[in-house]
């Protein structure tokens, strides 16, 4: 008999501030009105998705020393808008990307536990780190963190947050009106933490939340990021690649789990994925090309080129050929974006492609950046998704639509029913919490004897 078919997990990424978000389309709605968030979240819930996902950016992106004005700009504070969404959804997980560098554990752990209460067990935290002084200019401590310490801080932050989440025993609240006992004070532990990044002592104000610990998501493909995810995360949000790349990444990350005494199913691998759907595969391909043209307008094409070449290219015609100029090897023009490791090599590769295929600047940028992960009819896309999941290249996907707020409508109407018919995607939620959707156990509460003790250091921490 064959093994049971692996179940697909799906999440919805709010399009928002992203160069894949198309804003010039007449169907494109507001990136800030609450109604846009409600539409996307309710669509995802109708499709029985695991969770809804919000990215974060704590400083407006800049290019050439000026605010980048070609992409969607402006977003809400993630946890606040997710709290509001908890009122208009019932089962959908609610995941916020929140920076571990420019927050403090006591406050953030408290806010995440609050969201878990207010959503009855649907909160998730995508832990990200930065160290740049550019973002730091909006915060008390500026660019205080050495780049090498990003993951040591994040790991310590998560460890301390979990100690705070564990510090109230689940039955600490007695609420016996006749006897006059509301709470057993001895069941509220005092957390004592004194380590490299944080010195914290005291009690949490939030009773143990429905999930015990909100779900931890970790984004990042680096070796350090993988190790951190293997030690600390419930979901890893990775980059999408080929089936073979996916299998290699999947095997590598799952292999690391044993070191931390964890089972393979305890960490879900969910790459980001874009898509274009059509009535037929050919129609979808046409639509995908059209979306790419919308995503890379003439000005955006030049801006992309400038980021790689590291110099002003505004004099060139985006619909004309790639000019014969060399990239600036040192100086970085862009801020708030991932810096390119090796300009010269990337530029050489781009030039080779442009010459081989005889492409204009805009065509080249379309060719070289952000092609859709899944293009095809609903049946084709469903089959591809299943290939990745059954082939152990992913446990599911975080889908990134290109339109706000209707970008997920077709997927939910057309692809989800096919996955359901194939028996690889839920038709109803099995339980009320995000941990239920992801098949994750509720962490065991701390023993009473352990309350009031210092936060233990793990046997092995990260890859440092």
């Amino acid at each position, binding site marked *: 008999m064959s093994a049971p078919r692996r179940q697909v997990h799906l999440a919805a990424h709010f399009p928002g501030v992203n160069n894949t978000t198309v804003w010039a389309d007449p169907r494109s709605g507001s990136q800030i009105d609450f109604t846009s968030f409600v539409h996307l979240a309710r669509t995802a819930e109708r499709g029985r998705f695991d969770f809804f996902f919000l990215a974060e950016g704590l400083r*407006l992106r800049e290019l050439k020393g000026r605010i980048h004005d*070609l992409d969607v700009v402006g977003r*809400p504070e993630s946890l606040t808008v997710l709290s509001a969404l908890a009122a208009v959804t019932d089962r959908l997980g609610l995941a916020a990307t929140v920076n571990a560098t*420019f927050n403090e554990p006591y406050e953030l752990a408290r806010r995440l536990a609050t969201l878990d209460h207010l959503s009855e067990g649907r909160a998730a935290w995508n832990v990200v780190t930065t160290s740049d002084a550019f973002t730091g*200019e909006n915060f*008390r401590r500026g660019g205080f963190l050495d780049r090498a310490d990003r993951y040591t801080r994040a790991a310590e932050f998560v460890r301390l947050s979990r100690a705070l989440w564990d510090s109230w025993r689940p039955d600490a609240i007695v609420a016996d009106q006749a006897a006059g006992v509301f709470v057993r004070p001895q069941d509220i532990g005092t957390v004592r933490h004194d380590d490299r990044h944080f010195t914290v*002592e005291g009690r949490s*104000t939030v009773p143990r939340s429905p999930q015990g610990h909100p779900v931890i998501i970790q984004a990042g493909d680096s070796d350090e990021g993988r190790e951190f995810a293997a030690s600390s995360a419930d979901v890893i949000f990775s980059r999408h690649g080929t089936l073979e790349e996916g299998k290699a990444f999947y095997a590598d990350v799952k292999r690391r789990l044993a070191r931390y005494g964890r089972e393979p199913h305890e960490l879900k691998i969910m790459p980001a994925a874009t898509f274009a759907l059509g009535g037929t595969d050919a129609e979808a391909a046409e639509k995908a090309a059209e979306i790419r043209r919308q995503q890379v307008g003439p000005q955006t094409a030049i801006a992309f080129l400038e980021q790689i070449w590291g110099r002003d290219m505004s004099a060139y015609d985006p619909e004309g050929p790639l000019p014969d100029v060399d990239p600036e090897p040192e100086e970085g023009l862009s801020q708030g974006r991932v810096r390119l490791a090796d300009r010269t090599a990337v530029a050489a590769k781009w030039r080779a492609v442009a010459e081989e295929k005889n492409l204009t600047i805009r065509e080249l940028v379309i060719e070289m950046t952000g092609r859709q992960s899944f293009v095809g009819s609903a049946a084709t896309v469903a089959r591809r998704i299943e290939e990745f999941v059954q082939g152990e290249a992913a446990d599911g996907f975080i889908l990134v639509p290109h339109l706000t707020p209707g970008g997920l409508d077709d997927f939910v109407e057309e692809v989800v029913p096919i996955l359901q018919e194939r028996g690889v995607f839920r038709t109803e939620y099995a339980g009320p919490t995000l941990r239920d959707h992801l098949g994750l156990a509720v962490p065991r509460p701390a023993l009473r004897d352990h309350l009031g003790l210092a936060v233990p250091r793990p046997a092995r921490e990260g890859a440092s």
Partner: protein
Amino acid sequence: MTTVPLHLAVALDGAGWHPAAWRDPAVDPRELFTARRWAGLVTEAERGLLDFVTIEDALSLQSTLPDGPDERAGQVRGRLDAVLLAARLAPLTKRIGLVPTATTTHTEPFHVAIGIATLDHVSAGRAGWRVQVSPRRTEAAHFGRREVPPLDPRRLDTDLLADLFGEAADAVEVARRLWDSWEDDAEIRDVPTGRFVDRDKLHYIDFTGARFSVRGPSITPRPPQGRPIVTVLDHGHSRVPYELPARSADIVHVTPHSRAEAEAITGRIRALPREGEPLKIFADLVVFLGEDAAARKAGLDELDGAEFTSDAAVFTGTAEELADLLLDWREAGIEGYRLRPGAVPHDLEAITRRLVPALRRRGAFRREYEAATLRGLLGLPRPDSRYREAATV
């Protein structure tokens, strides 16, 4: 002759302001941390057409001691983050203002500012922020970033308070600049030029203060109200009493215990320098309402083993008597009240179902919501961004 209507707010916290309120059989004490219970309270307040609710909060557990846990089992302990709680309630209400408490002492001004701006977006213009400082050593130890002596209310450290209030004023200034940092028409979606925003309408705020500096602009577009409402509770104990609210708030909550005290307080406040719209002065009162109010309070006192007292005046009596008192203090310059119900839901329902009709009979309270935003309910105009070019007007 018509009188100017009063403004009414209620302050929500736990099962009410009396520490034994959770033992009332009308309360299910297991529900205190659920959205369902809070939704019931806020919709009740909205049914009474109140201006706003405030939500108490602090970064440490409640305690009967001035600083540090008291190990008491018989009182409510635990609170959720108030800003998130307010956001959770926003989609369930339509008109009532939502004013969560957030401290300025250990938080990032940038995060608080975008949190309140987001609350304003999800509530379509009903957000406020009750600014609070954290003088306790207990709270400082939760962050490990500053040394603070234990709080002793008999010997307040005026230097520390001046420092914390100064920091609060800076945090409010940062928030307001961030709220203004996107002009209202910054988003242009101009297809021919490929520009989503007009970056000349996005502004660096370049704030530098003693405790922090913030560059800006905000990541969140301008809130629907332009600037959400800022409120401050002030007991007048600082070195310059009421200086913080006069400088930084739209509303000050004060705690007079008599009409004469109210007069003295409003006189002091009106004498302070002030820019912009006049500061609105709201008095706080803890209220136990009904024919049996005094007996009810006495019963709760007995359950708690102590007579309940408060920084604010404690009123026990009927809704009619309270209506008379509110109108009497209005003569002393009080424009609104933040009522702290002794026990919830009992005293909240007494406010919405008895006090409000009693005030209406006296021509002193609205019969319908007259505006869609909290600023509108308070009669405050929507301000232009400070960065808007005067020449383009």
